[in-house]
């Protein structure tokens, strides 16, 4: 198990992107306070996404004739790190760029590719993902939303919940039942692209505890999809989704959710001059943990780029990543409160409070920790 994750280096030409991206972000984001930046990949800014597209930083790995840059996986890795580390508002294009684009490239028809991919690269097509349903939670096999084949294509009925960015996205890629019954579990599930402007689609935002409305519940009532709404093979939806999950579980998204807070607190410590032993230890623990996970994540990115499927290792990294992402607000809170009346940095305090509140959600994306540990146990040969 452990032998399969060699240290991997980001190629120099991709690494070289970093300076340029950093300069762009320093300039573009300079007026955004940390407590807003802390939203990062929940932050929606279509204009910002278009600026990235203008610079050729979306759809990097897609072929040139679809508008991409035909770069390797590490170019996107570098850009993602810089975007997330800076807390850039990336959520408009994030799913399209990271998941939907590659999915369509891999499984889509030529028609789907030439329609969607250029739009994704130009930040004109934003995507959301429809997985969970009311009552399904982690148990995706219990999906009840159904697309029935008819003479005009597919007739969609049902609903999805916890969909990020639905009201501001153009398309949803939904995992739905195209055959069989919930009792058939994972058999009979397929992925379909839903144009969210179609009649019968009703989107109701869900406010989260921080007051934002990133989530939605999306209802489908006799939504008529065209025949080419289906992505990939009918009935292969579960396998396709799982192939995506390995990417989702090990990318830089799984390390940097609390990074804006780390930076904010680091600047505060430097301004104070004398951080104290507890703060130094805490800071060292956080960045050491992140350094190791980053090395793991880069190694996995290399394996994925070579077409390997390190699903178990990706799951280990995701579980470890969630642990440190969730621990960071707790640890920094304890360190800041160690000198309970010293801090007058309202922005730091707000960033801290926001991430304390939001941190529980970090273990919702990509599977709860129980689900992940079950996968790991299987990977270890235990069931």
């Amino acid at each position: 198990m452990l032998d399969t994750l060699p240290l991997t280096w980001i190629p120099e030409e991709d690494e070289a992107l970093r300076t340029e991206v950093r300069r762009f972000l320093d300039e573009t984001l300079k007026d955004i306070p940390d407590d807003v930046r802390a939203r990062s990949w929940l932050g929606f800014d279509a204009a910002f996404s278009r600026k990235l597209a203008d610079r050729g930083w979306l759809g990097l790995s897609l072929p040139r004739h679809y508008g991409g840059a035909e770069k390797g996986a590490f170019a996107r890795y570098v850009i993602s790190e810089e975007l997330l580390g800076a807390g850039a508002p990336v959520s408009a294009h994030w799913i399209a760029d990271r998941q939907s684009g590659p999915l369509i490239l891999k499984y889509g028809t030529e028609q789907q590719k030439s329609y969607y991919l250029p739009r994704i690269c130009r930040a004109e097509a934003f995507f959301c993902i429809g997985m969970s349903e009311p009552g399904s939670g982690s148990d995706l096999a219990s999906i009840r939303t159904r697309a029935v084949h008819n003479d005009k294509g597919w007739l969609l009925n049902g609903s999805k919940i916890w969909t990020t960015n639905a009201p501001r996205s153009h398309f949803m890629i939904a995992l739905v039942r195209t055959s069989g019954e919930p009792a058939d579990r994972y058999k009979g599930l397929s992925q379909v692209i839903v144009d969210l402007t179609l009649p019968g689609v009703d989107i109701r935002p869900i406010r989260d505890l921080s007051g934002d409305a990133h989530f939605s519940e999306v209802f489908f009532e006799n939504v008529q999809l065209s025949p080419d709404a289906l992505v990939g093979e009918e009935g292969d939806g579960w396998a396709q989704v799982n192939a995506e999950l390995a990417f989702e579980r090990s990318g830089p998204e799984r390390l940097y959710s609390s990074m804006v807070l780390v930076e904010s607190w680091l600047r505060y410590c430097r301004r104070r001059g004398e951080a104290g032993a507890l703060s130094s230890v805490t800071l060292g623990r956080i960045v050491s943990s992140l350094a190791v996970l980053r090395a793991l994540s880069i190694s996995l990115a290399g394996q994925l780029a070579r077409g390997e499927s390190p699903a178990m290792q990706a799951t280990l990294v995701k579980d470890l990543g969630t642990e440190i992402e969730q621990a960071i607000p707790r640890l920094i809170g304890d360190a800041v409160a160690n000198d309970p009346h010293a801090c007058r940095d309202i922005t730091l305090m707000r960033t801290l409070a926001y991430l304390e509140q939001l941190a529980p959600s970090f273990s919702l994306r990509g599977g709860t920790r129980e689900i992940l540990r079950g996968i790991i146990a299987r990977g270890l040969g235990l069931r």
Partner: protein
Amino acid sequence: MENLLADSFERLLAQVSSPAAVRTVEEGGDPAALWAPIEASGFLDVLVPEERGGAGLGLADAFPLFMSAGRHALPLPFAHTVLARACLASAGQDIPEGPITLLPSDGLLWEAATFSALVPYGASADWVLTTMEDRSVLLPVAAATREGATARGGIRHLLVWNALPLESIISGPAQADIAAVSAAAHAALIAGATDRVVSMTLDYADQRTQFGKPIGKFQAIQSQLAVMAERALVARIAAGMACQSSDWIPQPLLAAVGKGRASEAAAIVADISHAVHGAIGITEEYDLQLYTRRLREWRLSGGAEAHWDHQVGEALLASETSALSFLCSALFPAARDC
């Protein structure tokens, strides 16, 4: 008698500090409507001596009331006001109307010609009781500018006074270590809120079905729920020790133990409750977040676990007794009749 008192206050808060009322204040609504029945109830004077018109009870008697305030996520400084009124009464001073919050002496920073402080309940208090140069001082919040120091719904604010109104200075000596008093109050609030969060989470685990059975039947969830219940028990007992005093002043070392352990429990209980609840728990409309948000705020208020653990450790190092002896004497409340 304490039970009658506690039950009666619990009933009052269940009625007035409803989730809807809490949300109203959190969103900036006028807290007066919520404060009025509390002020009218007379509970604010439980620690004020009988000769000054209070109930003349001790901190241990007030402990269940403070827990109720936590259990209902009351966004107003009830516990703080009760303690502030006791303090003012014992200094022989007049007690103003309105909610009063507490601030330790080192909480007020003089810098760039202004006084500033991060104040718990800064969002809803009318007064801040603190000490300056060994004098009790009551600062009017109305004279300060205020700015939220937490995320949405937070009640800790940064208050900045450009000048301090001289008439606010109380001409009496400081009565107690406000840091310890405030720590005991926060520990009790945390104990109350963890109690609520635990019962919400147990209910949810019983009702929510996944993979064909209630999630509370899964061994991994059960293990987490057991840890949560353990920590809630620790918070409860630790807070009870912090508030174990026959007058209104807690024993500072026990307040340190109480706030340190309750703070640690606060984070663990909040984290587990959300892990068990999943996505529903972080929605605005579900009530869990009202209590977990407060848990996180109270954890940090006036110092979290490292701060208070440090105080306890330093006290033990400075003493000349064994750790066991320190446990049996310094870290256990004096007998109940004291």
